[in-house]
């Protein structure tokens, strides 16, 4: 079985989500909390704040936004850079070193548990 990954950088680490979630890539765009996209108001989730809360480097002033689908809803993920879209086989995916919200690894890319990450971010507010 093959997977299509959307690979993006947050801070100094590459992460991936299922590319079938991705509707559009927006940016670079100034940092906002709500992104207006095709007449919809999408809440923005800042992945740097969730994945690298202790980072000392300042966040990018003009992040890229990934408009992505979660269930039947949409939101925007703020990331440093979108790197590539990769098709890989399931066999190439390996267990990852323990890291919060990371399900598995492909080389240096961490496959993200987006749903758990978003749910944790909601309860943290």
């Amino acid at each position, binding site marked *: 079985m093959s*997977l299509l990954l959307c690979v993006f950088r947050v801070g100094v680490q590459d992460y991936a*989500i*299922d590319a*079938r*979630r991705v509707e559009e890539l927006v940016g670079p765009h100034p940092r906002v909390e709500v992104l207006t*996209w*095709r*007449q*919809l*108001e*999408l*809440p923005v*989730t800042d992945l740097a704040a969730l994945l690298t809360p202790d980072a000392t480097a300042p966040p990018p002033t003009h992040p890229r936004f990934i408009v992505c*689908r*979660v*269930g*039947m*809803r*949409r*939101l925007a993920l703020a990331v440093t850079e979108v790197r590539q879209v990769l098709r890989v086989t*399931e066999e190439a*995916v390996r*267990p990852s070193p323990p890291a919060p919200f990371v*399900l*598995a690894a492909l080389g240096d890319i961490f*496959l*993200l*548990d987006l*749903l*758990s990450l*978003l*749910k944790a*971010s*909601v*309860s943290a507010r």
Partner: protein
Amino acid sequence: MTTSPLQDFLYRPDEDTSGLERISLGRGEVPPSGTSEPPVGMLLLRLGPRTCALPLLAVREIVRPPILTELPRGPEEVLGVMLLRGEVLPVYEPKRKLGIVPGNVARAGPDAQPPPRSARIVVVADAEGPAGLWVDAVEGVVRVAPSQMKTLDVLEVERLLA
């Protein structure tokens, strides 16, 4: 029960997004501007042996079937009602209306069967308010060009469903 980590990685339109209502406001499909034939997003549903599709625009959310309350003197096509975040919704089973068999499993009341793992309620909104549609499974999302869809007349529909 161990599940492959990839199961939590892969996108499914009916994945559990409970708790995310506050941060996910965007809903519905917006056709891309500047194209002559904007594709239509469709949700693929399984009803018995058939795959059917519903426009994404019509779908509000997808949930696992909760306990349904019977309506003993309700209309035949209403399976019962469900509670969704304090809202009461009527639940229908499209399979029955479309004559797709098997379609007579009890879903509410004392004879109700526990729902199969893949069963879902697709919550749709219409002029009278939201309603739930009981489906056997959600199969995915596709984008279809309108020219790929063909309007059927009644005889073609009957033949298809026979």
